[in-house]
């Protein structure tokens, strides 16, 4: 049982390039989330999804887009990367609202030069 898998684990981009981070979960969870973690800032929610085909903005959505075409996958896209998007990105999922606990991936470290 893999849980939550993020790819890639590391990536270096140049300013203006685009890329997509993939999150896959094999637990049949309804809710999926993308967070970014920066030193001294804790985790900040970028976008989230409460089911296949649905997405919603979190607290820091600007510069990112997401898609949830399949229940098990949640994609985070950067259309035109900026140095301010250098961060560690975490995907998380949970079965539904009432269960509470989040299951996290191991993170994707992105550097934008």
């Amino acid at each position: 049982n893999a849980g939550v898998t993020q790819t890639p684990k590391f990536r270096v981009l140049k300013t203006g390039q685009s890329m997509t981070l993939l999150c896959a979960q094999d637990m049949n969870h309804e809710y999926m989330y993308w967070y970014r973690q920066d030193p001294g800032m804790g985790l900040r929610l970028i976008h989230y999804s409460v089911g296949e085909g649905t997405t919603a903005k979190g607290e820091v959505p600007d510069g990112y887009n997401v898609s949830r075409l399949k229940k098990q996958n949640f994609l985070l896209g950067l259309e035109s990367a900026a140095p301010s998007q250098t961060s560690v990105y975490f995907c998380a999922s949970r079965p539904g609202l009432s269960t509470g606990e989040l299951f996290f991936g191991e993170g994707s470290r992105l550097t934008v030069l």
Partner: protein
Amino acid sequence: SQQGEEDPQALSIQEGENATMNCSYKTSINNLQWYRQNSGRGLVHLILIRSNEREKHSGRLRVTLDTSKKSSSLLITASRAADTASYFCATDSSYGNNRLAFGKGNQVVVIP
């Protein structure tokens, strides 16, 4: 905006000692959760306490919740070197917005 705010931010203790961390939040919650993050790894859920609970135990962990003060504490008893990690509180709002808000985290170093 972040709901959880842990205090203190960094803690260094000797193995065998107890470690206490606090978290405050601003709005009404359904539950409050604590997570651990080892260096370079993802977060791992430790314990969840619901808004109608005041105290909860799990192994060497003890969590308290005071909804009147909008605060929680996490106590790790008889700490071990393996407890060295960052600890985050997260609040699940009662406004039903389907998301957890995380605090900035406490770094705990347990010296063998």
